[in-house]
């Protein structure tokens, strides 16, 4: 026990991560772990039908349970100002008008919230709510529904797609991917506390505290600054924390109504229909090349499922317009409304789906052409410019990723035809695919508080969802200032800290790193202004002239004696020095295109009698610009690769077409990959800074780790068995051809 009781400091990262000790000792709190005085508990009651309207909700039995404080339904609630009429509901873009409608859009839609003194009381009372419905027809079967949805143009046609008709080599295929659920380990939870009639405090599992602030401010028509949102630690996000979901609003409404802090945590089964998912998709590719393997053109059509109350387009064909030169190109897409909850971004959203189809089709084509898949790709990469915008890439090292990956996996051992490598009843094969992502950056701010002892606290509102943002920030601050890492403390995930964008779309570190550099420079100038009273050399100094060390501040000229922090503090009678700075994208976005990329290589064995696929080796080489912290970056890549294994081989959320409910929505029924399914992932980086994206040259990595993984695996299965499997997940029954 002693270990867990020891006091520790966030200043010393033993495993390289600033938050490591806080997490393993349990002292770092996740949203549901906070305790507010007089806190009570809310539990959501889900709709039992998939479509129709609520006739009546009988709360009498539930209300008699000892400990029940309040039951909220669409009939019994305080009006949320942002939902006061239809047009406001639409403007709010919140999606589900929680407790403000009698309409039912999907099975599991919250129809009531029971608030009680204990969680047990609330769960029991929730089970006693009796609702009657006027049911309506519903559709949850994507496979059936998508055939009735017509396609519309997604982006401008390039050249003429008719050119495909003359292509001597053509692949024309359909691909499907089952719906997948994020399933972060930590379940979504919110503690809402109204500290005054227009003042709200939220402990919330979210990837963006400022986004929660904005959304809630609109709904309740109170100023953003009146809402404090805390999300200091997160047990995984993967995209599910990028929106404000109905349960968050339920907790806020409940807290307002009972005038006490309310905690609401989703159950694991509720996690499957309350916080988004990667929607089921259908794709069709027609890809043509000349005899030398030069691409002539591509037609990419894609459809994804959504809800009936919101239209969510995955952007599946975006990646088609990114990696390769297709002189002739047409992309089309459609959204298929279903009686399911609204899907959302899930790791590598859109691109990871579209990439599976393209990279499978290219592999298919390589066998037709009898050209090595690596060579076929190298031949067609758009290395000179972004094929759509025409802007030159700031940097694009996807070719180097491919070459490095091929070397790591010993690609030369691959046989050009299937069924050539066997080991008893096992067939072995090699496959590869690439992935790319538009590398973004947003405005972000950071602050520093410095003490007399030379320690600094580096702050931003951004939440570290597990990627190592805090550790990366510490590394950057150390490099820019020279202050030892052990003297740099990190504070994240609170809306009272300098504002920052949500952590998503591989923009987190890319955005915040600029702010960290800016605030470090601001600190240098601030201290220089004090130092000038002691040594005139600091007059008109620039950040590059100034160095910090544990001894104090010094000027870059050789032999310059440092001025100690205590001398500076004493002379000016300082307590804490505080600076804040912002940084964001600018003109460079008009001059250059930006991308992160990765090459994935895989060696599989496939059992010919049982259909079992075992991944023997998985290599992921990524270009994420400068790697700020290799351990954290590699950790992120291997996590993504394991996610890719799940996508390729097992992840599948089914819906029951007769009942409208999800099937097996728990961690036993829904399979994501576990350690036993994955080898140690071979991760490598190109590690060349992007000179234009931000002051550190670091680009995001979160998405490219999974974009291409599933295709690499499917392509390896083809190389092993000669079976081209186009429907994910590739479970053993499909491998057996059944």
């Amino acid at each position: 026990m002693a270990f867990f009781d020891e006091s520790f400091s966030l200043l010393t990262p033993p495993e390289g991560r600033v938050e490591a000790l806080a997490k393993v000792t349990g002292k770092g709190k996740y949203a549901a772990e906070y305790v507010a005085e007089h806190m009570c508990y809310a539990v959501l009651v889900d709709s039992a039908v998939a479509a129709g309207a609520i006739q009546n909700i009988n709360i009498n039995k539930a209300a008699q349970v000892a400990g029940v404080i309040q039951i909220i339904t669409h009939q019994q609630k305080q009006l949320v100002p942002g939902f006061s009429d239809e047009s406001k509901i639409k403007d709010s873009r919140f999606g589900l008008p929680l407790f403000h409608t009698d309409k039912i859009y999907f099975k599991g839609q919250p129809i009531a919230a029971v608030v009680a003194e204990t969680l047990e009381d609330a769960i029991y009372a929730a089970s006693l709510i009796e609702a009657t419905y006027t049911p309506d027809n519903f559709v949850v079967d994507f496979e059936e529904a998508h055939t009735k949805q017509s396609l519309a143009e997604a982006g401008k046609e390039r050249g003429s797609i008719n050119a495909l008709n003359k292509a001597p080599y053509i692949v024309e295929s359909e691909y499907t991917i089952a719906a997948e659920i994020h399933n972060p380990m930590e379940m979504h939870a919110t503690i809402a506390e109204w500290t005054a009639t227009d003042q709200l405090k939220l402990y919330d599992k979210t990837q963006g505290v400022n986004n929660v602030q904005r959304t809630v401010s609109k709904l309740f028509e109170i100023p953003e600054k009146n809402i404090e949102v805390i999300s200091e630690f997160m047990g995984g996000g993967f995209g599910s924390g990028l929106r404000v979901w109905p349960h968050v609003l339920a907790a806020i409404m409940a807290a307002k109504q009972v005038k006490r802090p309310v905690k609401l945590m989703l159950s694991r089964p509720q996690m499957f229909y309350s916080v988004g998912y990667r929607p089921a998709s259908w794709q069709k590719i027609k890809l043509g090349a000349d005899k030398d393997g030069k691409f002539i053109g591509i037609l990419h059509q894609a459809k994804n499922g959504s809800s009936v109350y919101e239209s969510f387009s995955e952007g599946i064909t975006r990646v088609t317009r990114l990696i390769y030169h297709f002189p002739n190109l047409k992309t089309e897409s459609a959204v298929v409304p279903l009686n399911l909850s609204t899907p959302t971004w899930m790791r590598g959203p859109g691109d990871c789906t579209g990439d599976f189809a393209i990279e499978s089709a290219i592999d298919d084509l390589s066998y037709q052409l009898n050209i090595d898949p690596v060579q076929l790709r190298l031949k067609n990469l758009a290395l000179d410019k972004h094929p759509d915008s025409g802007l030159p890439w700031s940097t694009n090292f996807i070719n180097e990723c491919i070459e490095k990956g091929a070397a790591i996996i010993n690609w030369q051992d691959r046989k050009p035809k299937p069924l050539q490598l066997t080991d008893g009843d096992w067939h072995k094969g090699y496959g590869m695919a690439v992935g790319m992502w538009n590398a973004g950056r947003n405005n972000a701010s950071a602050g520093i508080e410095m003490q007399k002892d030379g320690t600094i606290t580096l702050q931003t509102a951004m939440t570290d969802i597990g990627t190592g943002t805090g550790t990366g920030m510490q590394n950057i601050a150390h490099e820019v200032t020279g202050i030892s890492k052990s003297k740099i403390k990190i504070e994240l995930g609170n809306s009272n800290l300098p504002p920052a964008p949500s952590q998503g779309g591989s923009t987190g570190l890319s955005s915040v790193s600029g702010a960290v550099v800016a605030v470090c420079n601001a600190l240098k100038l601030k201290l220089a202004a004090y130092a000038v009273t002691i040594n005139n050399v600091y007059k008109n100094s620039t950040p590059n002239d100034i160095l910090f060390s544990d001894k104090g501040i010094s000027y870059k000229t050789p032999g310059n004696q440092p001025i100690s922090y205590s001398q500076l503090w004493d002379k000016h009678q300082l307590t804490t020095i505080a600076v804040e700075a912002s940084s964001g994208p600018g003109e460079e976005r008009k001059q250059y295109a930006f991308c992160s990329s990765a090459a994935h290589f895989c060696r599989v064995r496939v059992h010919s009698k049982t259909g079992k696929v075992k991944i023997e080796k998985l290599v992921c080489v990524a270009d994420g610009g400068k790697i700020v912290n290799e351990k954290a970056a590699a950790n992120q890549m291997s996590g993504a690769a394991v996610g890719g294994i799940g996508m390729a081989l097992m992840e599948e959320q089914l819906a029951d077409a007769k009942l409208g409910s999800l099937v097996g929505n728990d961690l036993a029924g829904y399979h994501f990959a576990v350690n036993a399914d994955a080898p140690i992932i071979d991760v490598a980086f190109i590690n060349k800074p992007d000179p234009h994206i931000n002051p550190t040259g670091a680009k995001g990595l979160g998405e490219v780790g999974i974009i291409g993984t599933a295709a690499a695996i499917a392509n390896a299965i083809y190389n092993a068995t000669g079976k081209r499997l186009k429907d994910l997940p590739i479970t053993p029954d499909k491998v057996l051809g059944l």
Partner: protein
Amino acid sequence: MDNNLPINAIITLIEIPDNPFQKNYHYLKVRDRDSYAFALVSVAAALHLNGDTIVAARLASGGVAHKPWRWYEAEDFLKGKQATKATFSEAAAIAVKGVKPLSDNGFKAIMLRGAIETALHNCLTG
């Protein structure tokens, strides 16, 4: 669970008698993921061998019925046969001969056949 234990009885010991199957046996579980998942099909196979000759065999499966299922006919067939791939393949064919899959699990019959063959073969190699 079915049992005929008297009320308040506690099981303190289970004795497994010495048997001739402890040298050549294999358990194969085919599943969508490699841990924490139900078997699509599973096979427990054990051979009592005298040289290359099968003296007796035990063969059972999970994931194919509401309870573990013994393949008696295949066990009988294996008795006295040579422990070869061809024998195992035939035993597997005998086992699955009468299985009737449902509308959504037709793959199980074929997977089962391959799994039995593999499990029997793995009895020889461990």
